[in-house]
Structures are given as C-alpha cells and as structure tokens.
C-alpha cells in the first residue's frame, strides 16, 4: 500500500516539476527585468511567441534545438521593443507591455495557423524523465542568484532598480543596465514558451500559454524578486497544476478545476503583497517608472 502512495507522490512531484519549469525560467527572466526597474506586462505575448517560434523553427530545421534558440532570440527581440518604448521613449510601461502581449498573441496565431494539429519534435528526457531544459532551468537558479547578490553586476542592477538617480550619479549607465536586463529577461521568457511547445505539450495550439505569462508576473512578486523564491513558487504552482489533473477523476468539472491556478495566483499575490510590506523586501522602488536624468 505504501509503495502505491510513494508512486503517486513521485508522479505528482514529477508532474509538478515539469509543469513548473516554464514558470521557473520565465520568472527568473522577469525578476532580472523588474530588478532593474522595468515592468514588463508583455510576458504572455512573449511567451506565446516563444512557443510558436520554437515549434515552427523546429519543424523547418527538423530538430528541436534550433527552435529553442529561435525562441530565445524572438523573446529578446520583443523585449527590445518594450525596452525601446519604456527606456528610451519613456512611455507608459503598463500600456507598452499590454500592447506587446496583444501583438504577440495575435502574431503567434497567425504564424501558428499552419501548424495546428501537426505533431511536433520534442525533447528526449535524459534523467528521471526530465529533459535537459528542466535541468538547465534549475541550474540557472543558483547562478542567477549569485550574480544578482554577490557580484558587481548585481549591485548595479539592484541599485538601478531601487534608486536610478543614485546609480546614474555613481557613473552607472542606467539605460544600458535596463536594456540588458529587459532583453535577458525576454530571452528567458522566450525559452519558457519554447519549453511549452517542445517539451511539455509538444504541439501547437492557439493560446497554449493559457495565462501563464500573467502567473509569472504574480510569481515574481511571490518570489520577492529573488531567484530562490522563483524556484519555490514555480514548483508550488506546478504542483497546483498537477493536482488539477489528478483531481479530475473525482468527478469535479474540469472547467472549475481549471480555475484553480488563477484563484491560487490571486491568493499568493495577496499574501506576498501584504508580507513584503512589512518585511521591507518589497518591489524595487523604481519599478515601472521611467528614468530621465535631471528629473525628480
């Protein structure tokens, strides 16, 4: 009997880790972007563009890895657009991100139209039923944490996000740091989309991201903008998603179960925002505000 329970537990954990992988890498990317002070609401659009690019290029090239690379490039390119609007043109970051999401969602269904229903290339699992990307994403956590908190670059990034005037005054190129962080974040978000279409569900359907982009935004807050928190959050969330499918046989409507991730997102958002208020480890103070030298 206990062997069965362990087996069930193992399968849930495995499902949780797999479901959590796209969330993990996407959150890691968004953490870097937001740490530098840029709010990117375009995650959903970038993720889905990453998914469709990975699928399409994989089809064309006959191999998964060019697809993954393409997704990273596409994510970076879209992030660059958002960066240009937010950092150089200094327009409203909320709207710029939203526009990017709409554009990305639309463009992806355009590109993806021809690929609906086609069987895609998928990554082969290498260890414990996990494919290389899962391990890569997990490996990113300690690396990105180290860079953010224990290196000079990390100090620059965090300072730009907290007090860009101080950073500028100290000789740090605020605009460059923000651009790089936004583009880097975009790359990782592209990868998170790629994971969906070449590993998690190796096929293409419209809107296959199903709101995960927005969940990533919530997870970024839950993680307190710390890569370690991203790991915890992504896996917990992956667990909720895995649970959703496990509970179906109990007769609960799949649609209602489908609300679980979203309800959960709202819950963690509320908890995180309340907690961080007291813990003084809140959002980067300059998050979402454009920086212009000489202006208060």
């Amino acid at each position, binding site marked *: 009997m206990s062997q069965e329970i362990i087996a069930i537990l193992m399968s849930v954990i495995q499902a949780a880790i797999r479901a959590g992988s796209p969330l993990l890498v996407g959150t890691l990317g968004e953490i870097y972007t937001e740490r530098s002070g840029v709010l990117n609401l375009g995650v959903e659009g970038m993720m889905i563009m990453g998914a469709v690019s990975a699928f399409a290029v994989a089809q064309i090239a006959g191999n998964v890895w060019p697809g993954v690379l393409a997704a990273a490039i596409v994510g970076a390119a879209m992030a660059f657009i958002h960066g240009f609007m937010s950092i150089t043109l200094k327009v409203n970051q909320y709207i710029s991100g939203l526009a990017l999401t709409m554009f990305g969602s639309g463009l992806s*269904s355009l590109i993806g139209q021809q690929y609906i229903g086609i069987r895609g290339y998928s990554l082969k699992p290498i260890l414990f039923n996990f494919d290389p990307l899962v391990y890569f994403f997990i490996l990113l956590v300690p690396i990105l944490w180290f860079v953010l908190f224990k290196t000079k670059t990390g100090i620059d990034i965090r300072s730009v996000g907290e007090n860009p005037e101080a950073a500028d005054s100290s000789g740090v190129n605020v605009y460059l740091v923000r651009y790089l962080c936004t583009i880097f974040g975009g790359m990782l978000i592209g990868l998170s989309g790629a994971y969906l279409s070449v590993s998690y569900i190796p096929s293409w359907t419209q809107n296959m991201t199903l709101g995960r982009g927005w969940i990533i935004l919530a997870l970024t807050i839950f993680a307190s903008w710390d890569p370690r928190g991203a790991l915890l959050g992504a896996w917990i969330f992956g667990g909720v998603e895995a649970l959703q499918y496990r509970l179906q046989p109990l007769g609960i409507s799949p649609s209602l179960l489908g609300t679980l991730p979203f309800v959960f997102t709202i819950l963690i958002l509320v908890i995180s925002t309340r907690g961080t208020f007291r813990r003084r480890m809140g959002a980067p103070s300059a998050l979402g505000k454009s920086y212009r030298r000489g202006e208060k």
Partner: protein
Amino acid sequence: MKLKVERRLVESRRRTISITILSALSLIAIVFLACGVNPILAYERILYGAFGSIYSISETVTKSITLMLCSVGLALAFQTAIWNIGAEGQLLIGAIFGSGIALSFPQWPAYLLLPTMFLAGFIGGALWGLVPAVLKAKFQTNEVITTLMMNYIATKILEYLLYGPWRGKEAWGFPYTEIFSSSAQLPTLGTTRIHYPTLMIAFVTVVALYILLTRTKLGFEIRVVGKNPEAAKYVGINYAKIILLVMMISGGLAGIAGIGEVAGIHHRLRIGISPGYGFTSIIVAWLSGLHLLSTIVVSILCSGLLVGGEMIQIALGLPIGVVEMFNGVFLFSLLIGEFFLRNKISLDISSKKIESRGQVK
C-alpha cells in the same frame, strides 16, 4: 550627431491623434504586406465593410454599443488610476447573471424580465469588479493581475455552465444554452441588429458619468483620488470607498454590455460572446484620452474597424489572431502618439572643434 529627446512645452492633442493614426496606418500596412495583402485594397475593403452600406453601418453601431459601455467605465477607472483589465470577465459574469434570470423565468413578460436582466447583469459585473477592488483597497494588491486572473476564472465558469448544468443544444462543437424566450430578447431597430434599449442606456450612461465626474462632489473626490491618492486621504476622502465605487460602476457597465450581447444579439448564452471586447475597450478608452464624452465617437470608429476588419478577415482568409495583432499595433501607435505629445526629437549637431571627451592628461 545625436538624437535629442526633449520635453515639449505645449501639448497638442491634435498632433497626437494625427501621429497616432499615421503610425497605426503605416504599421498595419506593413503587417498587411507581410501577409501578402495589398494594404490599400485592404483599407478600402475595411472602410467599405464598416461604413459602406446600410448593413455595414448598422453592424458598426451594433458593435459600438458594447464598446461604449465598457470603455466609458474603463475611462472612469483609468482616470482614478485603477487599471481594470478585467472588463472581459465582468462582461461574461454579467451575461451569466442575466442569462440565469432569462432561463429561470422565461414566462415573465418583457417589461419585467428585461429590466431584471439588466439589473442582474449590472450586479454580476459589479460583483466581479468588486473582488479585485476590495483586494486593492484592503491589501494594496495590484489590480492588473487580479482583474486579469478574474477574466480567466470567468471564462472557466462560463465553460462549466455551458458544458454542464446549462447545456442546451450544440452547434458545430460549440455548446450553448436554450434560446431565450421572446420576452427575454431585446427589440432591435428595424431589420438591423441594433438593440436600441442598450444603446440608449449607453448614451445616458456616458452623459451621466460625465456630469458625475465634472459637476458633483463625488466626481471631485474621484478625480482627487486618481491624481493624488495621498492628498486625497489627507483631506479626508475615503479612498477605499472611491475605489470600490468606481470598480463597481466599471464592472457593472461591462455587465450591462454582456446583457446587450446575450439578450440583444445572440439570444442565448454561448462561448465567444465577447471576441476580446474587454481589451478593445482599453484601446478605446485610451484613444479617447480618457475623456468620457469622447468614448462615444471613438467607440463607433473602433467598432467600424472591428466590423471592417472582420469582413476582410473572412474575405482574405486571415486567422482570428490578426485582429488582436492589430489591437497591439494600434496600442503601440497610441504610445508613439503620446510620446510625441510630450516630447520633440531634434538632431543635435555639435559644432565644437576642440573636443576631448572626458580625458585629461
């Protein structure tokens, strides 16, 4: 030679709108070209599809009703610095509440049933908007994400009802409820689909909200909260009350729009009663410069684009995502327009002969 970006002194709204429209037209033309479509032909078809015939105009007006209701509520919310991205979900829940009334009391006479449905729709949308509002007022939770999440939850609830307890007939794989009784169907103008009671509600609402915002004490408080919430608390304005009220109005109006859709157009509840109206309304609200009265005209224009867009989409075989893409491009154009509202670009040609950039021996 360097590109210099400078703050402008005089902001000209007219310039913004022209630049917005110009960049939108150019960018969308690029998209058309990329799809292998002649942009000029496409624009022609769109205009014709929107305003070229009595039928087109009536369709445009019909679609504008929903946009008007949603966008005026959003304009109000955005002015109060409440980023309500949840109009989509609020519309659905309003439609659900109204449909519930229609399905439960089909025998009621129209003069009783229809107003009740509208009321139910308002309440449904208002409640759906209230949840994120309470979270924001009490816990300072970011309303962008909560309202978005509520959209997805609403969609799932709709799915549940349609595949479950309210399941009616099925057509081409998309389920719907039973058709509403005739007393639950809104009258329309002649042979068009213009459900004029909702249209009248929309007009009255826009004007009423405008008067509320500019001429009443409550409107004053809303404006103060929107522009400086700290000062608002300081002069004793109940910040929480304002947020809750504004979100209820915004959500409630979207809910009424939902009733318009189910009682006026589809005569039943089904998936897809809102092809992204919630998001398009964001654009309408923004394009109106958040001016309440402007939303009437802008709604009609944007719905014209939607109608025309749909026509060419079918005619040219473009997938559904194209309209969403246009929305995105449009929003970008809006941002570019806004940018030129506040800044001007000039080329900085330095004529200094002796230049040593930060280097001293």
